[in-house]
């Protein structure tokens, strides 16, 4: 990967971030504001689904499912944030050993 490619990627990535931060404050229409507030649940649930079931743009079932189930259970049982991560990692690691 060339320096040019890295710098173009860096500039583009920062450009996307900054554009959102600058444009966001100009959004005044209530409907748009409500739309923006719904971005996190839509995208985070999509991220969770992809990081659990996707590998190289294909859907697969593997040990990561155990981590997701463990994380859901721990969150439901009101385990603190760090605990949720540790429990999910342990469940995935264990499932890998067993399968």
């Amino acid at each position, binding site marked *: *990967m060339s320096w040019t*490619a*890295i710098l*173009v*990627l*860096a500039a*583009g*990535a920062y450009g*996307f*971030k*900054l*554009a*959102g*931060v*600058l*444009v*966001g*404050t100009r959004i005044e229409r209530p409907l748009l504001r*409500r739309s*923006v507030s*719904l*971005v*996190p*649940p*839509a*995208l*985070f*649930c*999509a*991220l*969770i*689904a*992809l*990081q*659990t*079931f*996707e590998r190289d*743009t*294909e859907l697969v079932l593997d*040990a*990561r499912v*155990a*981590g*997701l189930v*463990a*994380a*859901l259970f*721990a*969150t439901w049982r009101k385990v603190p*944030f*760090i605990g*949720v*991560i540790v*429990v*999910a*990692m*342990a*469940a995935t690691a*264990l499932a*890998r050993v067993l399968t």
Partner: protein
Amino acid sequence: MTTTSTHRRDSVALGAAVGLVAITFGLLASTSGLSLAKAMAMSLLVFTGASQFAAVGVISSGGSPLSAVAGALLLAARNSLYGMRLSEGLARHGWKRIPGAHWVIDETTAMSVAQDDDVAATEAFWWTGAALFFFWNLGTAVGVLVGDAIGDPDVYGLDAAFPASFVALLGPHLSAAPGRVAGLVGASIAIVVVPFTPAGAPILLAALAIIPALLVPAAIKTTDSAVSTVEGTP
């Protein structure tokens, strides 16, 4: 007080977990032929994990730099949506939002919008951003330099850390019907389109879940306010 110390501690914890993932990135970067300087430049300057993994992944599988950059930028585009969501809180920090925009990523947005009030939300953003930036770059360096000695990080279930942290932070969003619809439809869209689209596109398409979610809420809110009007409580 309690919530303040909680979100600071959680920010550092998330940073540490992400730092472990960065070791994987450093290892992958070095096995793809990137020097320490280039790997560090990516983590310092690009600073958006999914894009970095995608770019290095394309290079290591023999793809062209152009397709590596294009794919990575597609993954980075969602940060624009996060920026819009965080813009109001960041606007209160004046010029600092210009450099601060560099830290607008999945994790900082998740930690920030999970907070109950505006002050905690912006503080959580800065704390998570600082913790992630520190640990992400430290982890990258460790991965490049001694990654070989650590071996396959998936053995430790590291790939479960990221989705788990998002599960833990989702609660407040799913407490109301619109958030639940957005989440459910968003995840469904992403899963359905995965086999047919390049990496990054499923996440952007998941944003379409906002449309059905917008149709839900009014009814429920009206019911609530109707009840409270009848009972005379605010």
